[in-house]
């Protein structure tokens, strides 16, 4: 091809060395010479046409572009059966995927065979992994259902809650007039609705039933964006305050009306009126929680139009392009402007502290509190999983040394190291998947337990279940873990050289790196287990401290009856007082009942109300205080609940609507406002502006401080007002809704039936009231700490168990491996005790490192738990000592059996053994 010119042969162009070497390696041997020659031929031609540099560039480009086709061709298995080849008519890509598939299925079959050959090992791996995996899947399902899954509304991340913020950063409600003004002036929301919880007594064919639901402004369903199942939902144009229409929830419709298809348009009778069903919502929809079963327009009431009645919560859908922060700023400005404009009407009870607003995403508001808890739980089960994987890796290492001969033979027969590793990993992935399947079954049970144990106020608990996401998670975890703990023996096996392995037969030695890996894994397991035990120990201590807290009221002999008198029959104060008077008359003095009282906001009941206040200064001026909580109580309340009277007198019969306004305060209030002085006789008023004209209340008594919100609450200032005075003065809290409180002699539960029958005798039409003992109230408030303590404790126990199985396994393996050496030592005169001691010592050395790391790491890690601890610091030395001792003891126990076995070795048999 290169023409001889008269001047002599032109020097041949040298192809670029790297490219040539690369393509020479890529092409298969039969065609190598031909391809390279072809390239050289074209190189020369290029050089003649365009010059050597361009030619070499072309060569390199050709090489690069040839990489993929040549590689693909090579990877497709050579030498396939002609039949298969003839069948294949598709483009070349599927050929490669077929060969991948072929190779994959071969690995799987081989892995299955290997698993079948060592059933005990397989069982150990599967069981260990199933335990850890089951716990993981269960916890993940809870987190997924509660935290990750979007709420059942259209575009749920556009939904936000808007609250008013008072002092102490407490979020409070908005009044209807304020809400309307804010909505008119604000531009941040596409739609905005206000709502509040409500309850109505339904008069059904078989008796009265109390329903919980929501009263809302008409836009609520436009905000949420979920279309009704039947009929229509509330609409802003058509449904006004007081309209007697109702939208039913799916559960209510099924439960109470048998899923009647003609329900729309029917009239429903309540105790205080009727309402027409205009629609039914689909299954799975709820707002704000699954406990609310119906939605109606806001009911008419005398204070609905008062700016001071902070009744509504609000939920809005952000306008397109508006961020949370922007909305917060804008609404805050609007709120301030509205407050200033309303100044002159003297309707607004406060001016300065009540125009802060907070805008929070609905999702965050509903489930945000659970984030911390779930993070800790996921971390804990993750640690358990890590321990299990380390355990299985250990098992794998020791198991692999037992197979070292088999592996060596296969390697000698030509199986590449990569292939052997791949097959070992495939085996373990298979085992992991099997373990995950068993774990899945376990997780159903675990999940049921979690849901049963879960605190009632854990949001979306009813939605918890194992769905496809959880399944996918389970498979993913199994895959990753299988690869991880399959890689450990794979690496060690691939490193082992063939010769010694063949010679050593079954006395396979782990090798130095293998031993180091074993120690590292054990240390990891032990330290992680120690971490979990520490965490659990701290939580257990917290829980114990919490349960020892004295909330300030009697926790053993109090019964609380939730009263809800319908306005239709108790519209006047006389009627209400008549009811309570009859109740006291019938119940006081009954056997087993020592005292009877009443309050509108029972501690630990979840309901409470705050107001701002001013106190009277020495010169008669109003000095603003911050917020206090208030309870409207009847006579005998403090005695019935066990709150001690510290000074002055109790609320009495004389404190009626025409008597001077009085109040009783708790000690915290007194300490706050009049430290070191006697508050009796001083006066305060409910409002916080210097020139309001709310009436003064004179303090006539001081009582002990109770915790209001839960056992970990801090003491707050509380003022108690006589029921017969409060409603006439403020038009709120008539006493129709509240708690009848009873002090009992014996167990409170014993008088429940008496109470029910007496109340029924007073008013037979009253629906069955909810009755709780104070012990139940307290227990409910501790539900979440109990939940996480039990959970973390269980995980810690599981982790310890798995870690110790690991220690036991390694020790047993070590003893078995060194049987010969032990036999020699005993033959030379070592006593059984010395042998035992030796084994225990070597076991201890394994534990010590893990212990040290675990305790040290614990100092850092337990800081994460700080918000969940009560009465104990994250570095509480007692807990650390106890955790350490527990792990040491358990470790010794794990080493005991192998140690005993070592001491029982018969020298003769050991020496004979090969």
């Amino acid at each position, binding site marked *: *091809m*290169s023409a*001889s010119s008269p001047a002599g042969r032109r020097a*041949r162009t040298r192809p670029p060395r790297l490219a040539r070497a690369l*393509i020479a390696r*890529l*092409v*298969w041997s039969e*065609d190598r010479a*031909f*391809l390279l*020659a*072809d*390239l050289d*031929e*074209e190189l020369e031609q290029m050089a003649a046409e365009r010059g050597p540099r361009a030619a070499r560039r072309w060569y390199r480009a*050709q*090489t690069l*572009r*040839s*990489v*993929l*086709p*040549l590689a*693909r*061709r090579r990877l497709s298995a050579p030498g*396939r059966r*002609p039949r298969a*080849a*003839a069948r*294949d*008519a*598709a*483009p*070349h890509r599927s*050929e490669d995927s077929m060969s991948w598939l072929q190779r994959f299925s071969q690995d799987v079959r081989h892995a299955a065979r290997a698993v079948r050959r060592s059933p005990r090992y397989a069982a150990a791996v599967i069981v260990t992994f199933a335990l850890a995996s089951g716990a993981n899947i269960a916890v993940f399902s809870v987190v997924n259902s509660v935290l990750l899954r979007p709420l059942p509304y259209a575009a749920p991340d556009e939904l936000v809650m808007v609250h008013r913020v008072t002092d102490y950063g407490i979020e409070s409600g908005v009044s209807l007039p304020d809400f309307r003004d804010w909505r008119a002036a604000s531009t941040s929301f596409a739609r905005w609705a206000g709502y509040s919880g409500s309850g109505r007594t339904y008069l059904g064919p078989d008796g009265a039933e109390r329903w919980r639901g929501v009263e809302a402004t008409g836009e609520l369903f436009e905000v949420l964006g979920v279309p009704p199942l039947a009929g229509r939902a509330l609409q802003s144009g058509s449904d006004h305050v007081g309209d007697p229409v109702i939208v039913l929830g799916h559960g209510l419709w099924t439960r109470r009306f048998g899923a009647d298809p003609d329900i729309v348009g029917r009239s429903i009778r309540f105790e205080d009126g009727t309402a027409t069903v205009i629609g039914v919502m689909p299954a799975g929809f709820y707002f704000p929680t699954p406990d609310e079963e119906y939605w109606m327009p806001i009911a008419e009431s005398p204070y609905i139009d008062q700016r001071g009645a902070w009744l509504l919560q609000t939920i809005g859908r952000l306008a397109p392009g508006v961020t949370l922060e922007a909305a917060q700023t804008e609404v805050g400005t609007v709120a301030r402007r509205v407050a200033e404009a309303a100044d002159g009407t003297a309707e607004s009870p406060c001016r300065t502290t009540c125009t802060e607003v907070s805008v929070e995403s609905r999702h965050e508001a509903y489930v945000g509190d659970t984030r911390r808890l779930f993070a800790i739980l996921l971390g804990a089960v993750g640690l358990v999983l890590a321990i299990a994987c380390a355990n299985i890796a250990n098992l794998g290492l020791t198991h692999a040394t037992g197979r070292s001969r088999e592996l060596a033979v296969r390697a000698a027969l030509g199986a590449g190291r990569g292939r052997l590793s791949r097959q070992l990993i495939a085996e373990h992935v298979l085992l992991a998947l099997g373990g995950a399947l068993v774990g899945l079954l376990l997780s159903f049970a675990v999940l049921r337990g979690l849901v049963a144990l879960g605190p009632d106020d854990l949001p979306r608990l009813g939605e918890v279940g194992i769905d496809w996401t959880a399944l996918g998670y389970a498979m993913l975890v199994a895959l990753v873990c299988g690869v991880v703990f399959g890689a450990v023996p794979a690496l060690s096996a691939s490193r082992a050289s063939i010769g010694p392995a063949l010679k050593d037969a079954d006395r396979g030695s782990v090798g130095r790196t293998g031993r180091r890996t074993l120690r590292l894994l054990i240390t990891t397991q032990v330290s992680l287990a120690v971490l979990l035990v520490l965490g659990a120990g701290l939580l257990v201590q917290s829980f114990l401290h919490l349960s020892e807290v004295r909330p300030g009221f009697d926790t053993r002999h109090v019964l609380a009856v939730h009263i809800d008198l319908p306005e239709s029959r108790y519209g006047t104060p006389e009627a209400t007082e008549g009811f309570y008077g009859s109740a006291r008359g019938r119940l006081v003095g009954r056997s087993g009942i020592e005292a009877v009282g009443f309050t509108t906001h029972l501690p630990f009941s979840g309901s409470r109300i705050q107001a701002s206040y001013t106190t009277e200064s020495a010169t008669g001026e109003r000095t603003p205080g911050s917020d206090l909580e208030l309870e409207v109580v009847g006579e005998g309340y403090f005695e019935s609940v066990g709150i001690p009277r510290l000074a002055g007198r109790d609320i009495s019969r004389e404190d009626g609507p025409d008597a001077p306004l009085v109040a009783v305060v708790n000690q915290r209030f007194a300490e706050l406002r009049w430290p070191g002085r006697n508050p009796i006789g001083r006066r305060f008023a409910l409002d916080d502006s210097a020139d309001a004209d709310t009436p003064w209340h004179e303090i006539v008594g001081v009582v002990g401080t109770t915790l209001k919100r839960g056992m970990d609450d801090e003491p707050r200032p509380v003022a108690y007002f006589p029921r017969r005075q409060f409603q006439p003065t403020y038009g709120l809290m008539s006493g129709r809704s509240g708690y009848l409180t009873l002090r009992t002699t014996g167990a409170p539960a014993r008088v429940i039936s008496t109470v029910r029958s007496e109340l029924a005798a007073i008013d037979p039409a009253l629906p069955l009231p909810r009755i709780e003992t104070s012990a139940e109230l307290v227990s409910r408030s501790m539900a979440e700490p109990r939940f996480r303590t039990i959970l973390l404790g269980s995980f810690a126990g599981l982790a310890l168990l798995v870690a110790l199985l690991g220690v036991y396994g390694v020790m047993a393996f070590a003893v078995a491996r060194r049987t010969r050496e032990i036999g020699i030592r005993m033959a030379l005169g070592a006593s059984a005790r010395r042998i035992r001691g030796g084994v225990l010592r070597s076991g201890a050395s394994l534990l010590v490192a893990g212990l040290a790391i675990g305790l040290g790491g614990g100092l850092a890690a337990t800081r994460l738990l700080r918000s969940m601890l009560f009465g104990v610091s994250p570095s509480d030395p007692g807990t650390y000592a106890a955790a350490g001792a527990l792990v040491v003891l358990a470790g010794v126990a794990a080493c005991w059996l192998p140690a005993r076995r070592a001491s029982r070795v018969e020298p003769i048999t050991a020496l004979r053994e090969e």
Partner: protein
Amino acid sequence: MPKGRFLAEFELYVMLGVAGLGEGAYGAAIRRAIRGRTGRPVSIGAVYATVSRLEEKGLLSHAVSEPRPVPGGRARKIYALTPAGEAAVAHSTNMIRRMVEGVELDGLEAWAP
């Protein structure tokens, strides 16, 4: 007509190239033919991979020629269509022709029979 035998686009070009080149159908020549006629950049590796695959499918066969009697001459692998290969090419081409017939598209060149 062989049932279900349909060549991929590039496989068809390679087959047609081999058919067209006759005795000179070796790697580089096939590459140049496709490049020259279609303008599509072709790598030598793709040609060899495709040829190898087609051979495996029984559509091509090869013979190694004697080294050419020139300095630097070398043996070459010359490819040829097998009867099955010829049928496959005819089948694919006919299918394309039938689809093209009557279709009017901007830039669609006239189909030479």
